[in-house]
């Protein structure tokens, strides 16, 4: 049923349904009598009318088209698509976690509060920070919260000139976007050819108007920022703070800590580094950690402990306030907590080492066939620059599309922007040598195909329910919903 391509609306037959309610024994009240007029729609709502078996078959067939970590290798650079261990699911579905109500009295949820308190402590330890708020719902939300904290810090000191945030041109796109959301102006600084911060450009950008610098280390090119101490000193001397984008933390667990590098604020991606579901399978979670001098600005509530009792602390006068309904994505916290305990300190260190080893192994084999703009030992990911003997004819997009035919989710492409025809590969530590070799072999075959029969790449993917998508048309003339005609 690979060809199955219907929308549930197309299965609709008037009067068909998938439920059978008991006879109404309370009488009918017209909706108009129960709801004010402004809440009622005047148009008939168009909903599909289908039977139970229609619904089950429809979604089962659609689910078979799904591609995820449970079906295959997913080397999406900068996203750390590591396997999500099933014990995480076992723990988060325990009755005592899954069936909690957010309004339950504190006395009845001491275990859940203890878990959050401990997770705060463990994440702080891993990154070298003082305290962590678990509330932000995702990475970009964490960035926003972190920047609000930076803003609150300067404001409390009466340092109101600081309206600018420095972001390198190799940064994740969310960095400048989050800073703009919080009301900062962005100063973009250049990267050197090897992807590091251009120190001269940084010095020129620093002033008493700079609130902080956002940086990810390892950088988006998968390289460790060797000047980090000097960068931190320069920013601090100018009165700014350092923000650490935790997207690439999978390279450094147990090896180096952002807090020790001089960062003041960090967000983690539990859905990357700490093996909780990612993307559409989420929700994610983007906890924010800070050093001691920023703890008073963290969102409320924080989990605190008095004697043996845990409680939610709202009494924080300088807090940036509430940033998420209730306490964040608790189910995600349970999964990350489970992961950290299951791995242990040595296990996390080992994970980072193997993530780096896997990336270097793939890079060493692939550089025979693909351009490698920066040829040095990488961290957890590396960036290729299209085919080694490539002409302009076969592009990175064609290579990515062809990988789908070989059964892989393509790597991140055309990012970072500073590498021409970028292909960004992050294998993670959870893949075996065999899986890496199979993927490398597919990449090599594609490089050969590009020489022998480029047309097969140009027309890829061949084996998918939908062939090459017209991305330009989709962006220029988007059709965003189904319409009955």
């Amino acid at each position, binding site marked *: 049923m690979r060809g199955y391509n219907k929308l549930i609306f197309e299965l609709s037959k008037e009067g068909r349904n998938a439920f059978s309610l008991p006879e109404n024994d309370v009488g009918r009240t017209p909706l108009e009598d129960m709801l004010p007029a402004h809440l009622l729609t005047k148009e008939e709502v168009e909903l599909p009318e289908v039977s139970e078996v229609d619904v089950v078959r429809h979604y089962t067939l659609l689910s078979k088209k799904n591609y995820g970590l449970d079906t295959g290798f997913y080397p999406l650079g900068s996203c750390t698509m590591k396997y999500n261990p099933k014990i995480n699911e076992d723990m988060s579905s325990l009755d005592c976690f899954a069936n909690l109500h957010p309004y339950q009295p504190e006395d009845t949820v001491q275990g859940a509060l203890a878990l959050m308190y401990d997770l705060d402590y463990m994440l702080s330890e891993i990154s070298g920070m003082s305290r962590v708020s678990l509330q932000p719902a995702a990475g970009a939300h964490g960035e926003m919260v972190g920047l609000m904290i930076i803003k609150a810090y300067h404001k409390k000191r009466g340092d109101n000139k600081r309206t600018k945030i420095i972001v390198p041109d190799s940064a994740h*796109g969310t960095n400048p976007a989050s800073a703009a959301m919080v009301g900062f102006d962005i100063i973009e600084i250049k990267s050197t050819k090897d992807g590091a911060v251009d120190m001269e450009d940084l010095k020129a950008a620093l002033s008493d108007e700079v609130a902080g610098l956002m940086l990810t280390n390892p950088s988006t090119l998968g390289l460790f920022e060797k000047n980090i101490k000097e960068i931190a000193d320069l920013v601090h001397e100018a009165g700014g703070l350092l923000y650490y984008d935790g997207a690439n933390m999978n390279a450094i667990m147990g090896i180096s800590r952002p807090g020790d590098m001089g960062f003041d604020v960090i967000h983690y991606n539990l859905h990357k580094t700490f093996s909780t579901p990612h993307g559409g399978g989420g929700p994610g979670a983007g906890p924010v950690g800070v050093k001691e001098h920023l703890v008073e600005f963290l969102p409320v509530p924080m989990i605190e402990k008095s004697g043996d009792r845990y409680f939610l602390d709202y009494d924080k006068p300088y807090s940036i306030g509430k940033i998420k309904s209730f306490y964040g994505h608790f189910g995600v916290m349970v999964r990350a907590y489970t992961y950290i305990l299951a791995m242990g300190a040595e296990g996390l260190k080992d994970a980072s080492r193997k993530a780096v080893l896997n990336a270097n192994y793939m890079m060493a084999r692939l550089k025979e066939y693909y351009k490698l703009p920066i040829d040095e030992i990488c961290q957890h990911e590396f960036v290729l620059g299209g085919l080694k003997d490539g002409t302009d004819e076969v592009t990175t997009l064609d290579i990515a599309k062809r990988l789908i035919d070989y059964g892989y989710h393509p790597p991140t492409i*055309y990012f970072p*922007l500073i590498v021409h025809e970028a292909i960004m590969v992050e294998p993670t530590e959870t893949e075996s040598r065999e899986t890496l070799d199979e993927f490398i072999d597919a990449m090599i075959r594609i490089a050969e195909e590009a020489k022998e029969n480029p047309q097969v790449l140009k027309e890829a993917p061949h084996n998918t329910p939908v062939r090459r998508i017209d991305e330009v048309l989709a962006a220029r003339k988007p059709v965003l919903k189904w319409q009955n005609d």
Partner: protein
Amino acid sequence: MVTVGGLYYSKDHEWVKVDGKKALIGITDYAQNALGEIVYVELPDMGTEYKAGDVFCVIESVKAAADSFTPVSGKVVEVNEELEDSPQLLNEGPYDNWIVAIEMDDSSELENLMDEQAYKMFCEKEE
């Protein structure tokens, strides 16, 4: 890469065509080629005042969203509204399709820009 004589060029790959006090501003062939197929152009409002180096326009392509910086200071006196429905014009004819016209505050700012020959050499170094 195509360049055109008689224009001023910026390091951010914008071109400026001077018509009295008015400066027509667009993006170069190098820029449109690097961006790939352009799908959206966010135009500035009429009357907006910019300093040289300010972002006056955001251009989205299938690959990226990129800021465009005005090489000269002044007030927006015309915007090319055709780009709203046909952003691909910037791909098809980068030098035939200007984005905005700015009434220049200070035409001596043009001296900071490159001529065709200098811009060509600049792009070769970028490669």
